């Protein structure tokens, strides 16, 4: 059964922040400011605000002031975003409101995918019954430094595979089940996952329809080597709808059999995977981590959606 419902255009929503803890991350991308600026215009106020700050993208005084305006008490909690998972969990543990609040509004637009999984794991363990609204703002376009299809890169340096903490599944070293790679723009990531993950059968999941038609082309071109070089099955999920992702996984996967999932995809899809994984302990999430990420990957704002999650 799906635990995810409610999807609206963010522009049509009002009074979202009332009595909530507003959680967001800020980087240099325009989309990371979109939601809180709009709340500001609508003069919405949250109970408290948690801002995650990237090490290589410190908040300016002006940004801090702007965000403070959204809090009734003008108090905001700025939390560093360390790159290693354990340190991030340690930071989350220090935030008392994550355990006590009854309502959260979480803007995932500028959060790296593993952080999304870790935040929701915390909420699942500490504050399961809380109401959660999730905002995702889609950029107008991504930054391609050279030719459009192959130059997108979201990280620097080497990749290393790890499970996302809290999502190791329940089969440990004997894991040898199906692997679902939800592909994104970068072929290197999917190749890394495929190379280093034990699996029985490979499923490559693409988005359909994507925000723009060209994004599907890009992800296919950049993952083409994987598609043609391995015996795999293609699947499709909608790019903006986490509920459908959840339902598709629910229909496709068996509860009693382990499965590995690599969420290299859009954030709404990752959200759907996250919700599914929280409900199914047999799901294991693997991810290719890097030591450093590019912070300017997109420009402009296309649309913004808000998803309501309830238990």
């Amino acid at each position, binding site marked *: 059964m799906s635990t995810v419902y409610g999807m609206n255009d963010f522009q049509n929503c009002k009074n979202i922040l009332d009595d909530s803890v507003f959680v967001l991350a800020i980087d240099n991308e325009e989309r990371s400011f979109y939601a809180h600026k709009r709340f500001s215009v609508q003069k919405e106020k949250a109970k408290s605000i948690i801002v995650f700050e990237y090490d290589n993208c410190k908040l300016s005084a002006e940004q801090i002031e702007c965000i403070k305006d959204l809090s009734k008490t003008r108090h905001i909690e700025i939390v560093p975003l360390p790159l290693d998972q354990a340190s991030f*969990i340690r930071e989350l543990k220090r935030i008392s409101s994550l355990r006590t609040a009854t309502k959260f509004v979480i803007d995932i637009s500028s959060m790296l995918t593993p952080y999304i999984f870790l935040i929701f794991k915390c909420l699942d363990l500490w504050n399961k019954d809380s109401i959660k609204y999730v905002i995702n703002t889609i950029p107008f376009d991504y930054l391609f430094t050279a030719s459009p299809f192959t130059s997108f890169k979201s990280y620097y340096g080497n*990749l290393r595979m790890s499970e996302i*903490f809290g999502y190791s599944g*329940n089969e*440990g*070293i004997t894991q040898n089940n199906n692997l679902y790679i939800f592909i994104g723009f970068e072929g290197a990531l999917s190749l*890394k996952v495929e190379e280093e993950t034990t699996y029985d059968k490979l499923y490559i999941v693409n988005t359909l329809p994507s925000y723009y038609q060209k994004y599907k082309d890009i992800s296919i071109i950049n993952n083409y080597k994987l598609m043609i070089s391995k015996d795999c099955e293609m699947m499709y999920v909608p790019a903006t709808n986490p509920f459908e992702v959840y339902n598709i996984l629910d229909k496709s996967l068996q509860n009693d059999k382990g499965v590995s999932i690599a969420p290299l995809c859009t954030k709404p899809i990752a959200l759907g995977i996250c919700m599914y994984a929280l409900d199914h302990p047999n799901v294991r999430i693997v991810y290719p981590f890097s030591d450093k990420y590019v912070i300017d990957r997109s420009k402009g704002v296309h649309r913004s959606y808000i998803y309501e999650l309830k238990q």
Partner: protein
Amino acid sequence: MQNKGMISSTDSFKNPFEDINANVLDSKRIVEYWCSPFEVGLLSDYDENKFRTCNVPIILQGPRGSGKTTILKYFSFPAQLERTQVMGEKSVLSVIRSEGEVGFYFRCEDSFISTFEAIFKRVNKEQWTDFFDSYIELVFSEKILDMLFEIKHRDSSFDVEDYDISKMAEILSANEKIHDLDELKKYIHKQVLYYEQYKNRVLFTDDSFSPSILLKLFSLSEAIVLEIKRNNKEFENVLFVLMIDEFENLSLELQKRFNTIIKFISNIISIRVGRRSEGLITTETVNSTEYLRENHDYLLAALESKLDSENRAYNNYFYKIANKRFYSLNKMSENSEFDICDVLGDKEDLDKECLDNCGRKKKHLEMVLKQSKDLANNKKQLDEIISIIKNDQNPIAETLNALWVLRSKKDSLWEARHVAEIMKAFFNKEDYPGVEKYKLDYSSKYRYAITTYICSVYKRDKLYYSFNTICYLANGNARTFINYCRAIISEALFYEKDIFLKTGRISNHTQSRAVHNYSRSEFDSICSIVDYGDCIKNFILNIGNCFSAYHKDRKVRYPETNQFTYDESQLELHDREILKTAESWAIIIKRSKTQRVSAGNNDRADLYHMNRMFHPIFNISYRIRGGVNLILDKEDVNKLLHQESYYPKAVTKLLDSQEIKHNVSNKQYEQLSLFDSET
């Protein structure tokens, strides 16, 4: 030649090389595709029986894709179950008894290992390796019990009722909870599950780690094995073997742990370890004064050691692999006349390739002869010499003639007539002064070099086709060979399906196109997933372009030069680490023995070459020969790794002298665009 009877039903023909990675193959396919590397002598100190039953631990070493996983999986219990069916045996027990071994396979998957370490190190930094030992012991014990229940399930006469499980219960400190094998298995599974669930929660909840028991490796499993041997005579002389694959993924602390176990192995349970040739491997044990010693504590079975000397053994191995796959997947009888050598051709025909490239053009002769200033300035004499030395049916011979003329200190016209006589005598098999040298030059020394030179003159890709060529390019690596075959068959099914299915033969051009595409694609893929991928990509592109320049030398002074050397001790630490990574992924390959540094330099040093699968990218020879080698100093290596376009001085000199720098540079950009490195 036709492969008669190759494809009986053209509609149902499947590419037999689709299953590539042994990690993904189930035991049915592992058994179905099995070709014994032992039988063809790839592991010459071993036969299958020794590998199975030797009490001394064996480390199976080889590069990525060399077949380690296939071997380990083949000797594990699920494959034995498959073999029972294939051999028509009633019970797996008789297979296990006759093989004298039963194996349990575990892959040290990077994600699992790194997560386990990261989490349990935070729980207890000093004790986390004990937790790992205990976890592995629980899983291993559970696997042994799974085996018993599987046998029981298949063979009701297999008796497990009389097992005395008190010893195991005592080890687990659970005497009151365990009364039979079923309860033992459930109890162990519960302990394993505790680890998994704890791992998923601990960082979020700060729960303390309180397993019911901490086991040492083999403490419980040995007790189970002893009880099995006591109860079931079939197991009396059977060795239980723990198969640990991808050992290099273990951190140094865990490697030390396993090394200690290897050093003090019992005679009931042994270990087989699969690991990459290089990489972060330690021989240390947990005791700082004791190290693992080869042939004392363990035996080394190296899958790559014979590459230099026994290419024929690999050809034989690959030949069997290919044919077996055709038989297995397309359900052909082993007596049918199918032969992979007929599909791909046995060997390449360089004479024909050159003839196809030249037609009747003589530009290749002109370019050689114009390296002589006198001839470059005397068009009439140049034409006259060409008319004397030419052989319209044999471009290789006529190019060789041009080289003889160019190198002679005598009058060019005289030399032209002289070499023409020698050529004539050679082809007529007549005795004549100089024929022996001509034969050596034509048949061996310059044959391939002239072909690649002619390709460069007419701006054609060198063709890579035939079974022999694919074996060379595979560099002794089974997975690469299978990948090439897969790419070639796919290409044939797309471009020339009807002819392929009718004749069982694939054209040279289709083969070569598939080879080029695969080589580029694989290079790109590997560089995108290895550590320091960008630097390694620079290095290979730069070094490949150097060799490409050598292959275009109009005086053909460096026939088939494709090796390089550097003094590792002189390199910057970071550069050394990058090259070690390249070596561990078999992107560059070190010759097994030290060699003469280069022609004219008798010092001995380690020689390296790129993995031959990348040679088609640069249209260079796949043969590894002696002669001139590229000597790189510290600065060269650094720039080759970190600059996108760099030529060592020796190569720059060659390029400048022949004004071919521009071409090479253009070619490089052309290649770079194929690897997505837009700038």
